């Protein structure tokens, strides 16, 4: 790879063993030499990495379910995960949180064969970890057990997925705990920020922004949970991944037996795209804290957009690259305005993700830090990034690429996601070449198209009166954004989500 600066003698080597031998003898000689004056003077041995191919791990059971297997015998553990299509995306209007509550009760509500408490005791005695949860677009069930307890653990796990009992007492307990959790929704400014940002970005009715209320939780019936369970948990809607200490043929046979007689339903529908548009401007939600929390952003691209990789690089340079990124340098390191400043791009498969930059700063310097973000966003459209910035961002993406596959569970996770979302088969094989091919001009074009600050919303959670005026030195005030117009959003009742006051 072109990132390395090897000595010619090492460049000629390819076999790992030979390399090590050579290294050892050369190191002994090097030990007496002065140390390299700078890190750039170090010659690194080459590291050849090819991403694994999903096909080598993929199996199809006789009834059609796709399974990825990766045996590994270093530790006597087995990790099994089942990914079901659909999560919060399946929540019906008026009952946001139903998929999550269903997932929770599948885990907590016992099975047709065992009361909930007995089921939990058995799993705990086996020392087996089991979790079920729903995200925006998937529901996952995972099991981590000692290889010696696999048969017993897997039997319980399958009973739970196939025939959950949704025990009435457990449902009541879980609802009560959930209500206590809902009551805390305004306690931490971070959770207010998360809720209001999603409402702005996707509209309050989209599944990714909608949150349960006390009334919707209380009204949820056992029958609704059972219905949601029927839609999600069946072989027609799942992909299995197993890694760890097992024999491949034995595991395939165990899975064949396990799925026998479990009737296949239809695959869950794709998630709905948001209808609402994000309206640019300044928004504020009140919270009495000595620091303003800020997000600045807009809707972004879908995962398979051709601008995906250039936008990733741009985001790396702007605010995803840690201390090396512009926002961290200018806001934290130069000015000391924040502990952390960052930017994030998410890309959904079926509908656009979001871009946002964010930081937390003392009230008086919220405006100044916001101004720095705006200046940097404009600069990405007006000027080319430096050669050095692009080079650093590319090297970082290329050199950290192997970490996507650093463990067996992580590798299988990539395969499962790619299978569900029909990612092109050569995506990972050509990923580094695609990164290397991006130019500075590409980044400017992509910045103009996707990162125009005039199209963004600024959301501030904090004490507006202390924030609006800006810093003591008058370097910035909130009045300079969007002609000084501010939309004051109400704090919402944590239980009803209705505006307070």
């Amino acid at each position: 790879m072109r990132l390395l600066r090897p000595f010619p003698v090492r460049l000629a080597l390819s076999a790992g063993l030979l390399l090590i031998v050579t290294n050892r003898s050369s190191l002994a000689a090097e030990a007496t030499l002065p140390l390299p004056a700078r890190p750039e003077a170090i010659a690194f041995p080459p590291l050849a990495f090819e991403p694994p191919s999903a096909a080598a791990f993929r199996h199809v059971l006789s009834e059609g379910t796709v399974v990825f297997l990766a045996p590994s015998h270093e530790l006597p553990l087995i990790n099994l995960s089942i990914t079901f299509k659909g999560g919060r995306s399946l929540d019906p209007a008026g009952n946001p949180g139903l998929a999550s509550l269903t997932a929770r009760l599948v885990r907590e509500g016992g099975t047709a064969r065992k009361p909930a408490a007995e089921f939990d005791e058995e799993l705990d005695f086996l020392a087996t970890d089991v979790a079920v949860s729903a995200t925006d677009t998937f529901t996952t069930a995972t099991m981590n057990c000692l290889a010696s307890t696999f048969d017993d653990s897997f039997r319980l796990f399958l009973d739970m997925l196939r025939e959950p009992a949704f025990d009435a007492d457990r449902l009541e307990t879980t609802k009560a705990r959930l209500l206590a959790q809902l009551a805390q929704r305004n306690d931490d400014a971070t959770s207010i920020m998360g809720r209001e940002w999603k409402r702005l970005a996707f509209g309050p009715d989209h599944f990714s922004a909608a949150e349960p209320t006390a009334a919707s939780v209380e009204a949820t019936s056992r029958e609704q949970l059972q219905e949601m369970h029927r839609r999600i948990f069946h072989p027609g809607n799942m992909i299995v991944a197993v890694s760890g200490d097992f024999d491949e043929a034995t595991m395939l046979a165990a899975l064949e037996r396990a799925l026998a007689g479990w009737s296949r339903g239809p695959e869950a529908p794709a998630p709905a795209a948001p209808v609402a548009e994000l309206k640019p401007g300044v928004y504020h939600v009140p919270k009495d804290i000595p620091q303003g929390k800020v997000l600045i952003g807009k809707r972004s691209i879908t995962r398979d957009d051709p601008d995906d990789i250039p936008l990733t690089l741009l985001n790396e340079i702007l605010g995803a690259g840690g201390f090396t990124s512009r926002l961290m340098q200018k806001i934290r390191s130069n000015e000391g305005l924040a502990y952390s400043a960052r930017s994030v791009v998410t890309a959904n498969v079926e509908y656009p993700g979001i871009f946002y930059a964010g930081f937390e700063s003392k009230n008086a310097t919220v405006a100044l830090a916001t101004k720095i973000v705006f200046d940097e966003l404009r600069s990405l459209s007006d000027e080319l990034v430096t050669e050095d910035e692009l080079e650093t961002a590319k090297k970082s993406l290329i050199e950290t690429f192997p970490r996507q596959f650093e463990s067996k569970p992580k590798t299988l996770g990539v395969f499962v996601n790619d299978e569900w979302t029909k990612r092109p088969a050569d995506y990972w094989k050509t990923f580094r070449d695609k990164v290397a091919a991006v130019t500075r001009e590409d980044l400017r074009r992509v910045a103009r198209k996707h990162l125009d600050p005039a199209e963004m919303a600024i959301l501030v959670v904090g004490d507006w009166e202390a924030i609006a005026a800006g810093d003591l030195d008058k370097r910035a005030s909130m009045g300079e954004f969007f002609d000084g117009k501010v939309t004051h959003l109400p704090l919402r009742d944590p239980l009803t989500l209705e505006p307070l006051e």
Partner: protein
Amino acid sequence: MIGCLLAACIGGTPLPAQQVAVEEFTLPNGMQFLLVPRSDQPDVVSAGWVARVGSVNERPGITGISHFFEHMMFKGTGTIGTRDPAKDARYRAEQQAVRDEINQLVWTRQYDRFFKGEIDDPWDPANDTQQLRVLRGRLDALIKAQQGRGAGGPDAGTIVKDEFDQVYTRAGGSGMNAFTTYDITCYFITIPSNKLELWAWMESDRLHDSVFREFYSERDVVHEERRLRTESTPTGKFEEQFDAMFWASSGYSWPVIGWPSDLNSYTFDQAQEYWNVYYRPKNLFGIVVGDFDPVIAKQMISRYFSRLVPGDREPPPVVTLEVPQLAEQRMIADGDFPPGIELRYHTVPAGHVDSYPLDMLAELLNERTGRLFTGLVEGRGIAATAGAASDTRKYAGLFAVSAHARGEATPADLEAAWYEELARLQDADVPDRELRKVKNRLAAENYRRLESNMSLFIQLAFAEAILDWREINDAPAKYEAVTAADIRRVARTYFTPTNRSVAIYRRQAN
């Protein structure tokens, strides 16, 4: 923190405990290294080092300086982070002179005005005297000039911003970070296997030739960190106060991040002094876990880290012991949080013979089938969440039980329920099957902790800094040996009314 980690080391039972093979060696300058080659995660290495220093080694006046050091360690060296080391040193010397003058004025004149009630905050620039305003302006100008953002423009600047991070970023480093606790300060990164020499270069360079660059501007960042973690979270400032109340004489009573006035007050000389005592090779150790050849790594480490110069002073022992608590302590906090409770008891340091049954006791209380969930969350239906932790540190320990109320339940109900559960633990032996269940779970945890390089790294860091790295291999047998009688004994010994402190949390009316 260590309590949870040690708890994760528990093992034994029908399975033989997994032994972690650690190659250990010490350089002539006294710096020790722990190497764990393993190939399950191919092509990557997690590497780092630990300074055996934390906030417990501080004293009033310099609280938080250990954590501040952690920030300073990313600011570069004579080679990394500057394009003109000589000029950069002159900037630093000038800044030091001005800042020392500012500090003197604040500690005398401004503190005096504050004590008399003339100003509300001696450190707030809004309360500056004319003389202070001028000095602060000069310091600010020097800082900007050094950054290339002031008079003289970019050419006058000497800093290459965050070059330390950039070098690693270009080389595929990820997860570069550090943390400071009461007892240890730890620096780490994950790198591609072929970049181990870069790690040795970078880390030995910053330990050999550290420069406290941006010594004055960085404390604004730490103030923001304080606001973020302590002051802007619902319970942060109350937890800080609870700590200060719980510990009477121990150095665990002040926060790791430091008191705000101390954070403003550190002088360059104090920092240099701290460095000379605590950041010398004998007080440090390195850890490398992952896919590498140990023979090559050993040579590489020896070649680079041998440049560190041994110090001429031993770190002073921590001599102040926590005095026994004689009466119950109680704190009532009103704020934006659900009604809840935290009870704490003074216990024992890590490695104490009673620390093993105490850790086991926490496990008995936790998890879905533990006694807090079945007793408080489900059985009595008064808690939304409940948990316990045995936090055994280097010089002292504590045991904490906490719960949030649900429904109409009050903190008083939670407190009463805990005393009932406690009485059960004190009056009767834990049944065999329940003890076996906990031991089984901890035995599985003994393997799960090895599933990632970073998790193993962190366990070695704490074990070696506080006891001995061998503890991660020895602990499983010690936990396996714990009996029901041991648990009952520690429940009676430590969980007494006069040894407890209680924090009551109440939701404040809007």
